[in-house]
């Protein structure tokens, strides 16, 4: 059941690859614009890198949030999911996981390559990738709440950014902080542990909150 929803969403993503690719290319282009505009000053680029990559990842994940539930809402499949005997929270968790596999994982895989443009040392690239690996699922999970709340509203796309971006701030601070700490020669374990804690908390609460919002949105 849980596997069915993931399988379904991945199948849909495969049939509509343009949606996946736009998110990835958005991320690549935004991250690549900075070295081009700021100029080739290595020390400045190195300081900027973690922040720029993380902000670009937030925006890229935001870009695809609108599609998380709205297509299912329009063709009536969301209605059927609400009437499923299985728990709606579990379904939402499946959808958020599929969203992460489709939008989050490509970003994580791409990040080390993009980091090279910023002259990041190998160890910092590793920390950046690990932090993204832990942090991007949080973005999908929190994003699910925003997407569910703004379902069917006019101008929902802008509203979802206003709702969700402030909630992304802690992940951004600690995600970028981990890489900065590593480059400053300080331990980065604390930062990663905190992102892991965010992940656990959002795994428990976000599906439940998004499921309740969906019930309200569809009434």
């Amino acid at each position, binding site marked *: 059941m849980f596997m069915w929803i993931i399988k379904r969403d991945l199948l849909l993503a495969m049939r509509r690859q343009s949606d996946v690719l736009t998110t990835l290319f958005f991320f690549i282009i935004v991250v690549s614009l900075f070295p081009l505009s700021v100029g080739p000053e290595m020390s400045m680029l190195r300081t900027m890198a973690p922040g720029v990559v993380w902000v670009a990842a937030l925006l890229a994940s935001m870009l695809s949030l609108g599609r998380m539930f709205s297509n299912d809402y329009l*063709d009536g499949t969301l209605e059927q999911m609400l009437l499923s005997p299985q728990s709606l929270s579990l379904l939402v968790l499946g959808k958020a996981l599929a969203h992460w596999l489709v939008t989050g994982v490509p970003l994580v895989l791409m990040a080390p390559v993009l980091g090279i443009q910023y002259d990041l040392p190998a160890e910092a690239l590793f920390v950046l990738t690990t932090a993204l690996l832990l942090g991007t699922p949080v973005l999908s999970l929190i994003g699910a709440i925003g997407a569910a709340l703004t379902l069917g509203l006019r101008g929902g796309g802008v509203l979802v950014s206003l709702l969700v971006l402030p909630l992304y701030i802690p992940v951004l601070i600690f995600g970028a902080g981990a890489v900065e700490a590593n480059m400053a020669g300080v331990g980065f374990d604390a930062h990663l542990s905190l992102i892991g804690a965010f992940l656990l908390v959002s795994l428990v609460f976000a599906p439940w909150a998004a499921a309740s919002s969906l019930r309200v949105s569809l009434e």
Partner: protein
Amino acid sequence: MLQGISLACVRGDRELFKDINFSLEAGGLMQVRGPNGSGKTSLLRMLCGLSNPAAGEILWSGTSIRSLNGDYFAAMTYIGHLSGTKDDLTVIENLRISSALAGSEINDAQASEALGYMGLGGREALPVKVLSQGQRRRVALARLLVSKTALWILDEPLVALDVMAVKLIQELLEQHLKQDGMVVMTTHQEIDLTAASTTQLHLA
């Protein structure tokens, strides 16, 4: 048994209906009638638990459907105006996935058989977006063939169907009613269904 006790529906500041009472036994058919905008779809959405009545209560075997939740959904199939099919998935994928989400997994053979019965044989591998309106409707209704639920709530199931398909659905519904199933439906088309008991609910 499905029971409605003094149900009311309010949309904005307009009261669509109030004091609706009914009781549907096993093998019973309830046809909801009324002009456009009289609240037929609103009533059906209440009955399947998608929205809450402004007043009154809906009981399934004597227990409120609010407190039953998953158990009620396992006994009920709702097919609404929206087909509930994904355009990018093939006909057979749609049927298998929607059945799995509704709690009864089926294999390819069962799905093909149901689609064949609905007159979609040979079209299993086509994406739904290339089908006509009537064919999409058939894909949605094919779910009834593979469902094991007792209560079917159907909102205008005959829209866009041709004469042959209407006949198929008629047979399907009568068979379901004969096996002690229950059907709640709205339709503007004339359809003769023999049932153990038939209730007509008129919304003004």
